[in-house]
C-alpha cells in the first residue's frame, strides 16, 4: 500500500471502524485522526526535502473508459491534506464531550477521506468522485447534528453544490471528448488532458468549470448557500466546512480550471479578478449587517476567500503563494472562530450578538481566545491572517489593474469594521435584557488546549511564514503566468 493511497484509505477505514465501534467511537476516531496526521507529516517530509518537487504515484493502467487510478502530491496538495488531517483532529478533540452517536465520528472520518482524495487525485474521474463524495458526509453532519432549521440548510447545501458541479462534470466530459477527437485516446488523466485544444467550445467549458468550483469557493454570485450551511452546521462541522471544504474550490481552480483552459482564463482574467475583489468587499459589507455570530463568521469567510481568489487570478508568484498560504491560514483562524462560537452555542444554545454581554468578566479565557482569533481574522500583522492577504494583494497589484488591489485593501479595512463591534457586543457591552450570559462558564482545560495550539500556529505563521512559503512555492511554479 503506497503512502498516497494510505492517506485516503486510513480515514475511510476509520469511518468504518467508528461506525462499528458504537460507544467507543470517540476513541477510534481519535486514533485514526492521529494516524492520518502522522501519515500526512510523513508524506510532507520528502516533499519538503526535495524542495517541493512532489512525489507522484502513477496508479494502475487505465481501466475501463480511460479511467486510471492516478494520485500525486506536491507541496500544495500535501499542505491541504495536512490541514485536513490537522483540522479533523481538532474537530475530534473539540466535540469530545458531545453525546452523539457513532455515526457522527464516522461522518467526520469519511469527510476527511473524501477531502484527502480530492487533494491527491490526478485522474479527473477519481477527482470528481471524491469531489462529490464530500457532500454526503457533510449533508448528514449538517442534517443530523445541526441546530434548529438544519433540514432545509442541509438540502440547500447539497443541491446548490451539486447543481454547480454537474455543469463542471459536463465541462470535464467535453474536455475528454475533445481530447479523444484530437489524439484518439480515451483518458481522464489531468496531465494528459492539459494540452488539449478546446476550440470554439472553450469559453463554455471554462464557464462550466468555473461555476462548479465557484460554488464551492464561494465566489459572490454563487455564495448564498454558505451562511445557511454554516449557521446550521454543528461547531466541528463548520470548522471542517470553512476550514477545508471551501479550499476545494480554490484548489480546483488552481489545479483543474486554469491549466485546462489557459487561453480563456487569460482572456477572462479582468472579469474574474473583479468578481474576486467584489467577493472581498461584499463579504465584509454583508458581515456588518449580521446579528448572528456564525453568519458573521461565514460572511467573513466569503471575504477571505475573495482575497484567496485575488491571489490565484493574479498569476504572479507572490499571489499564488499568498493564496496557498491564505488557504491554510483561513483554515486555522476561521476554524478557531467557529470552535469558539460552537463552545458558546454548546453552553447557551444561542448565537445572537444581543444574546450575550459582559462575557469578559464571566469567561476571560473565552474573551482572550476570541479576541486573539478576531485579530488574526482581520489581518493584524504579526498573526497569520496578514501574511496571506498581504501576499495576495501584492500579487494582484503587479499583474492587473490597480483598482482590484485598492478594493482588496478596502476589504481588509472593512474587516475591522464588522469584527470589533461584534466582539464588543458579546464581551464588553453590559448584559442586555434576555441575555443568556449567566449560562456561559469559562473554557475547560481541553478546550483551552485546543485553542492554545491554534493560537500558537497563528503566531508562528504570522511571525515566520518563510518555512511554509518554501513548502508551497515550488509546486505553484508551474502555474505562474
Amino acid at each position, binding site marked *: 500500500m503506497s503512502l498516497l493511497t494510505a492517506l485516503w484509505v486510513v480515514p475511510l477505514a476509520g469511518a468504518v471502524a467508528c461506525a462499528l465501534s458504537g460507544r467507543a467511537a470517540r476513541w477510534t476516531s481519535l486514533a485514526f485522526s492521529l494516524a492520518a496526521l502522522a501519515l500526512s507529516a510523513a508524506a510532507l517530509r520528502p516533499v519538503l526535502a526535495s524542495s517541493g518537487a512532489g512525489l507522484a504515484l502513477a496508479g494502475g493502467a487505465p481501466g475501463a473508459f480511460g479511467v486510471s487510478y492516478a494520485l500525486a502530491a506536491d507541496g500544495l496538495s500535501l499542505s491541504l491534506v495536512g490541514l485536513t488531517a490537522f483540522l479533523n483532529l481538532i474537530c475530534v478533540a473539540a466535540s469530545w464531550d458531545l453525546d452523539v452517536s457513532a455515526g457522527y465520528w464516522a461522518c467526520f472520518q469519511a469527510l476527511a477521506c473524501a477531502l484527502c482524495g480530492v487533494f491527491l487525485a490526478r485522474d479527473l474521474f477519481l477527482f470528481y468522485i471524491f469531489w462529490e463524495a464530500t457532500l454526503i458526509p457533510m449533508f448528514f453532519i449538517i442534517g443530523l447534528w445541526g441546530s434548529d432549521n438544519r433540514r432545509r440548510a442541509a438540502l440547500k447545501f447539497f443541491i446548490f453544490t451539486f447543481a454547480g458541479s454537474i455543469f463542471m462534470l459536463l465541462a470535464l466530459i467535453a474536455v475528454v471528448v475533445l481530447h479523444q477527437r484530437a489524439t484518439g485516446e480515451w483518458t481522464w488523466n489531468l496531465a494528459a488532458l492539459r494540452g488539449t485544444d478546446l476550440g470554439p467550445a472553450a469559453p463554455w467549458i471554462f464557464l462550466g468549470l468555473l461555476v462548479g468550483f465557484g460554488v464551492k469557493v464561494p465566489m459572490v454570485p454563487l455564495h448564498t448557500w454558505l451562511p445557511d450551511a454554516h449557521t446550521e452546521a454543528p461547531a466541528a462541522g463548520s470548522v471542517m466546512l470553512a476550514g477545508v471544504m471551501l479550499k476545494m474550490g480554490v484548489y480546483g481552480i488552481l489545479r483543474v480550471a486554469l491549466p485546462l483552459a489557459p487561453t480563456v482564463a487569460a482572456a477572462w482574467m479582468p472579469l474574474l479578478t473583479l468578481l474576486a475583489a467584489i467577493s472581498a468587499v461584499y463579504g465584509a459589507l454583508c458581515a456588518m*449587517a449580521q446579528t448572528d455570530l456564525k453568519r458573521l463568521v461565514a460572511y467573513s469567510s466569503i471575504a477571505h476567500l475573495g482575497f484567496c481568489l485575488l491571489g490565484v487570478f493574479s498569476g504572479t508568484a507572490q499571489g499564488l503563494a499568498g493564496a496557498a498560504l491564505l488557504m491554510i491560514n483561513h483554515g486555522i483562524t476561521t476554524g478557531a472562530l467557529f470552535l469558539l462560537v460552537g463552545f458558546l452555542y454548546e453552553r447557551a444554545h444561542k448565537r445572537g450578538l444581543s444574546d450575550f454581554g459582559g462575557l469578559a468578566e464571566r469567561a476571560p479565557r473565552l474573551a482572550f481566545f476570541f479576541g486573539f482569533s478576531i*485579530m488574526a481574522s482581520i489581518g493584524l500583522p504579526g498573526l497569520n491572517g496578514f501574511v496571506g492577504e498581504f501576499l495576495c494583494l501584492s500579487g494582484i497589484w503587479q499583474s492587473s489593474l490597480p483598482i482590484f488591489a485598492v478594493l482588496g485593501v478596502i476589504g481588509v479595512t472593512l474587516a475591522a*469594521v464588522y469584527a470589533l463591534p461584534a466582539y464588543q457586543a458579546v464581551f464588553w457591552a453590559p448584559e442586555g435584557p434576555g441575555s443568556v450570559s449567566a449560562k456561559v462558564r469559562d473554557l475547560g482545560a481541553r478546550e483551552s488546549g485546543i485553542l492554545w495550539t491554534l493560537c500558537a500556529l497563528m503566531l508562528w505563521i504570522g511571525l515566520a511564514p518563510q518555512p511554509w512559503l518554501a513548502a508551497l512555492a515550488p509546486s505553484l511554479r508551474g502555474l505562474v503566468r
Partner: protein
Amino acid sequence: MTPAQVPIVAWLLFLAPISAILFGFFILRPLKPEWTHWPILLSCAVVAVASVALAARVYADGSFDLNFYRWAAVGDWGVDFGLRIDGPCVAVLTMVALVGSLIHVYAASYMKGDPGFSRFFLVFHLFFLAMIGLLTANNYVQMYLFWELVGLASYLLIGFWYQKESARKAALKAFLTNRVGDFGFLLALLLILTTFRVAQFHIIYLKVLVLASGGHTPEFLPLIGGLLIWAACAKSAQFPLYFWLPDAMEGPTPTSALMHAATMVTAGVFLLIRSWPLIAAVPGLPTAVAAIGAFTALASAVIAGTRKDLKRILAYSTVSHLGLMMLALGLGQIGVAVFHLIVHGFFKAALFLCAGNVGHAIHQPTANVDEVGGWRKALPWTYACFLLAALSLAGVFPFGGFFSKDAIVDAALSRGGLFAAAGLLVSIGSAFYIFRMLFLTFHGSRPEQKGLSAHPHEAGFGFVAPIVLLAVGSAFAGLLRPLIERLVDGGLHGLPVSVGGVALQMNLPGSAMIPGFEWRALLIGTAMAAIGAGAAYALTMIDAGWDWRWRVSSPRLVRVFDTDFGWKTLIGWIADGVTGLGNFAGRVLDKKWWDGAIESTGSAALGAGGLLSDASRGRLNEALWWMAAGAALLLAAGGLR
C-alpha cells in the same frame, strides 16, 4: 560599551519587555495579579538604561544595522526583519524609554485597586514593546507590524473600562480611524515592494538617491509619499483623521499621558522622518505636509481654548503641537521636528499627569473646568509642576519649549506667508489655552463651585515624584539641543555605503542645521506668550464669568466648536453611510433579493410540478388522445421531412 555588547544591548530592548509580559501573563496573572507591575517596572528600567547606552554608542560611533531573520521571500522580492539603531531612532527611543518608565511608576500607584490592574499593566507594557519595535524597525513591513500592534494596544487601553459605553465607542473609533490610516500604509507597502523589490529603509534611500541623481523619480513615488502622509495623519492625529484623539481620553490617565501625548501619536511623525528621502524627492509633498501641519495646529489650538474637560484641552493641545512638528518637517527642519518631539514628550506627559492628579483628587477619571478652581494651595506640588510644564509649552524663554517650539515658529517666519501667520497665531493660542487651564484650575475661586463637596488633597509620593521629574526634565530639555543636533543632523543618519567605489555618506536631504540662538526668536516668542497669557488672565481671572457666559449667550457658536467646525458631523455621516451600506448589502441585497431569487427557482420547480400533476386528471380518454396526438406529431416530423 564594547562592540560585542552592542547587539546584546539592542536585543535586550526587546527581550526585557517580552519576558516581563510573558512572566506576568502566565505566572503572576493567575497567581498574584496585584504583583504584575513589578517585573514590568524592572523591564522599564532595563530598557531605559539600554536606550541611554545605545544613545551614547550612536553618539560616539554612528548608527548600525542588525539583521535578524528572513521573514518572507517569494518570487523576486524578499523581506528580512532586523533592527536599525541610528540617530533619530535613538533620540526618540530614549525619550520614550524615560518618559515611559516614569509613567509606568505613576501608573503603578494610579491604577492600584482597579480590578483590571494586571490586565492594564500587561497591555500597557505590550504597547511599550510595540513602540520600541516601531522605532527600531529597519524595514517598512516590520514597522507596519508594530504600527498595527500599537493601534491594537491603544484600542485595548482606551477601552480599558469597557463597562462605560463612551469608552467602548471611543476605542472602536480610534481603532477604525487607525485602520483607515493603515489602508494608506498597506497600499504604500504594496507599492514600495513592487517598485523597489525590497523593504529596508537604507536600500530604498539608496535607490531613491541614485534615481534622483539620474534625474527621474520612480513612477509611483508621489503616490507612495501621499499614502505615507495619509497614514501618518491617522496615527499622529492630523487633519483629516485627528477626531479620534479627543475621544481617546476615555482611557485611564497613564495611557493618555504615555500614548496619546508622548509616544504613540509621534509614531506618525517618526514614519515621515523615516521615509523623508522618498517624500523629499517629490517636489510638492513637503509643502503639503507643512500645510496640513499648520492648518491642524491652528484649528486645534483654537478649539482647545474652548474645551471644558481638562484632558480634552490637553488632547487638542497635543494635536496642535503634532501639527507644529509636521510644519517643521514640511519646512525641511527634521532636526527641529525631532527636538520638539522630544521636548513635547516631556512637558505634555507632565501636564497629563497633573490633570490626572486633579482628577484623582476628586475621585473621577477626568475633571471638568467647572468642577475645579482655586486649588493652588490644596495641590501645591501639582500646581508647581503644571506651571513649569505650562511655561515650557507656551514657549517662555528659559524653558525647553521655547527652544523647540519657537525654533519652528522662527523657521515659519523665515519661510513667510501663511506659515508665518499660522506660526504666530499658534504660539498665541497655545499660551492662551494653557494659561486659561492654569487659572481656571488653580487660581481664583469660581462662583459655580459652591455646590462642590470635594476638598482636594495632594496625592502620595508615587503620584508626585514622576511629575516632578518630568516637569524638571521639560524645563531643562532645551539643553539637549546640541545632543540632538549631532544625532539627527550630524551625518550619523546614513550608513557608510559605497556605490561603485564612491563612499556615499547618506545624509537626510534638506536637514539644515538647527538655527542658533537669536534675539529675534527670543523677542517674538516671549511677546506671543505674553499676549496669550494676558488674554487668558483677562478672560478668566478679571472677568470671571466669561468662560461660561459666552456658552450660554451663543449656543450656535458652542455647537460649531463642539463639532470641530462641522468636521465631526461629516465623519458621523460617512460612518452612518458605511453601516447603512452594510445593512443594505447584508439584509436586503443578499438575504432578500439574491438568496430569495435562488430559492424562488426551487419553489418555481415545486409550482411547476404541482401544476403538471393537477393537469394529469387520470382520465383514460385524455391519455389516449395525447397518445394519438404524440403519434401524429411524430408522423408529421418523420413523414414531412
